[in-house]
C-alpha cells in the first residue's frame, strides 16, 4: 500500500507540471476584486458602455446587478440602453449576420466568457486581463488593430480612447543558436484619456465584473461553504465519538 502511494505521488508529480503554458505570451495575473463592490460596479459600467453593444450577455439579468450593491433605480437610470425592463437579460440589437459581416465572426456572448477561457496558462480572468491590455496598432489588419494574446483578432480595440495607441517593441535575442525577435515592452504612440495605471485598474474592474457575472452566486457559494465545512467538522467529532462508543464493545 505504501509503495503504491509513493509511486502514485511520483507519477502525478511528474505528470501534472506537463500542463505547460502553450499561449502566445504568458498571461498576467488579474487582480482579484470580487469582494470590492465599487470595483465591480465600475466594471459593470464599463461593460455596459463598451462591450454590451456588439456582445450580449444573454443569460444575465440586469436586476441581478443588485447583488453588487446597485438599486433598481440606479440600474434603470444608468445602465439600461437596450431594454426598459430591469428584469430583462442583457441582449443586444445587433444580429449574428451583421456581426459576421463586420468582424468576420459573431461576437461571442460574454455571460460565462470568464469561465470558458480558463486553461493551463491561467484563469479566464487572467486571459481577458492580458488580452484587453495587449492591443496594438497594425495597419495590415482590416480593423487596424492586432493583439498579442489573441493574434489576428477580429475585434477592434474598443477601449483605445482610454488606453491610447501603442506598439510592441521587440528585441533580438539568440535562442537555440538562432536570432529571434522577443517581445520586450510597449511604446506609447498617442496618449489615451487614462494613464497606464488608470487603464490597468479600469480593465481589472471590467475583468472582475466579467468574472463575477460568469457566476453571480460565487461569493454566496464560498460564504455558505465555510459554514458547511464548520458544521461538518463539528459533526465529524460527534460521529467519531459515537462510532467509538459503539465499537468499544467489539473485541
Amino acid at each position, binding site marked *: 500500500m505504501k509503495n503504491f502511494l509513493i509511486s502514485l505521488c511520483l507519477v502525478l508529480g511528474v505528470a501534472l507540471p506537463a500542463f505547460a503554458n502553450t499561449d502566445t505570451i504568458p498571461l498576467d495575473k488579474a487582480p482579484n476584486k470580487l469582494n470590492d463592490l465599487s470595483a465591480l460596479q465600475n466594471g459593470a459600467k464599463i461593460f455596459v458602455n463598451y462591450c454590451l453593444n456588439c456582445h450580449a450577455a444573454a443569460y444575465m439579468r440586469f436586476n441581478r446587478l443588485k447583488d453588487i450593491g446597485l438599486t433598481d433605480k440606479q440600474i434603470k437610470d444608468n445602465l439600461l440602453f437596450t431594454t426598459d425592463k430591469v428584469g430583462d437579460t442583457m441582449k443586444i440589437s445587433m444580429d449574428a449576420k451583421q456581426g459576421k459581416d463586420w468582424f468576420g465572426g459573431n461576437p461571442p456572448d460574454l455571460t460565462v466568457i470568464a469561465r470558458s477561457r480558463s486553461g493551463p496558462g491561467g484563469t479566464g480572468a487572467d486571459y481577458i486581463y492580458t488580452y484587453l491590455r495587449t492591443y496594438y496598432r497594425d495597419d495590415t489588419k482590416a480593423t487596424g488593430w492586432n493583439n498579442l494574446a489573441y493574434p489576428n483578432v477580429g475585434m477592434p480595440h474598443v477601449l483605445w480612447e482610454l488606453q491610447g495607441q501603442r506598439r510592441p517593441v521587440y528585441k533580438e535575442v539568440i535562442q537555440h543558436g538562432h536570432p529571434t525577435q522577443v517581445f520586450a515592452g510597449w511604446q506609447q504612440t498617442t496618449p489615451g484619456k487614462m494613464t497606464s495605471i488608470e487603464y490597468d485598474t479600469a480593465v481589472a474592474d471590467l475583468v472582475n465584473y466579467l468574472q463575477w457575472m460568469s457566476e453571480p452566486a460565487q461569493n454566496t457559494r464560498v460564504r455558505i461553504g465555510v459554514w458547511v465545512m464548520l458544521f461538518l467538522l463539528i459533526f465529524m467529532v460527534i460521529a467519531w465519538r459515537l462510532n467509538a462508543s459503539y*465499537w468499544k464493545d467489539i473485541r
Partner: protein
Amino acid sequence: MAEFKETSPDAPLSEKTLTWIDNRFPLSKLYKEHLSEYYAPKNFNFFYFFGALSLLVLVIQIVTGIFLVMHYKPDAALAFASVEYIMRDVPYGWLIRYMHSTGASAFFVVVYLHMFRGLIYGSFRKPRELVWLFGCAIFLALMGEAFMGYLLPWGQMSYWGAQVIVNLFSAIPFIGPDLALLIRGDYVVGDATLNRFFAFHVIAVPLVLLGLVVAHIIALHEVGSNNPDGVEIKAHKDENGRPLDGIPFHPYYTVHDILGVTGFLLVFCAIIFFAPEFGGYFLEYNNFIPADPLKTPAHIAPTWYFTPYYSMLRAITNEMIYALILCVLAAAHLGATKAKISTLLKGVVVGTAVVAVALMLAIDAKFWGVVVMGGSVVILFFLPWLDRCEVKSIRFRPDWHVYLYAIFVVNFFVLGYLGMQPPSYIGERVSQVGTLFYFGVFLLMPWWSTLGQTKPVPDRVNFVAH
C-alpha cells in the same frame, strides 16, 4: 408464508401496527436480514466505506437530478441557456447543479475505489461471483449514464465528446454506419440525439441502475461480505449460529458509515463550495461555450473517468495491430504446444487464431480500437474465473503480487493522464505499452496468479480493537 400473528388487545399501538404490517409485508424480517442481523466481518478497513458511499452518491444524483429536470430544457436551442438559468435564476439552483456535476465525478471516485477493494481482497472469488457480475453491470450502466448525461449541458465538450464517441460505432463493419445513425437519430449529433440521451439519462438507465443495485445488495447479503483477510467468517459460528467474527451491520456499521459519510462529505462539499470546476476536471472550461456544430475544438477529450479507456482506444493504430497479431500468434503457439488439451481443441485454438489474424488484417484499426475499449471494461466480468490464486486477499499473496497490482494502478493513472492529452508520438507509444500491460494482467492471470509462495491464511480474521 409466515404464520399469522395475533397481538394482545392491550399491546401498545406501535406493536399492534408493526404486527399488522408484518402479517402483510415482511418488514421486521427485511430489517433483520439486511440490517440488525446481517453479520458483517468486524475487520473492515478504510476501503469498505466506498460501498455505502456509492449508495449515498446514487441517492444524491437521483434527488438532485429530479430537481434539475424541473428546470432543464432538453432542446438543442434551449439546453445551454436552461443550465445557466438554473445557475442564476433558480434559488440554490447552482448548489443543485454543482452537487450533480461533482456527484458524477465523485461517483466514479468511490466506485473505482470500491472496485479496487474488491480486486485486492478477492471479493469477486467464489461464492461472490454474482455480486461481482452485478457490480460490473452497474459500472457499465454508470458509464452509459455519465456519457449521456454529459451531453445535456450542450456545451462544446458535451457536443464534440458525444460526436467522437458515437462516431466510433460507425467503425463496426456492415452495421456500423446505420448503428451510429440509430444512436444519434440524425446524421450529426443534434436535437434528436439530445432528446434520446435525455430520455436514457433520466429514465431508462437509472431504472436499470436501481434494479442492478438491489440485485448487487441481495446477492451480497445472501453470501455475506468478504473482508480484508479474505477468510470466511461463516466457518466459525457460535451456538446461536452467528459468525464469531461477525457483528450486526446495524448499529456497528451504520455508525461506522456515518463517520465515513461525514469524511466523504467534507471532501465533496469542499469541492462543491470552493472548487466546483475542480481545475477543469469536473466541469471542463470548454463546456461553458455553447455547442457549435461548425466549430470543432482543437482538442477533444472525454471527462477524466473515461480517459484510461479512451487512451486504450487511441493506442490501437495500424502498427499496434501487428503487435496484437504477434500476441495472438504467440498465444496460439502456446496453446498448441504447451496446453494439456485434446488435439481437436488444439486445432480449434489454431483455427480461431488464424481467423482472428485474418480479421485483424482485413478490418480497419479503428474498429479494433473500439473492441479494445469495450474489452477493457468487459474483461472485468471474467475476473472471478481468471484469478486462480490459492488465497483471496492480497495480504497473504506473494509480495510481488502487491507490486504487480501497484504497477497496474499506476498504469491505469498513466493511461488516464494520456487520454486527456492531445495525441503525441511518445504518448502513443506509452499508451500502447500500457494497453498491453492492462490486458496482459487480466489475460495472463490464470497463469501468474498461481505462481509464487502464498502466506498461511489465518483461521479467524485479524482484528485490533479500536
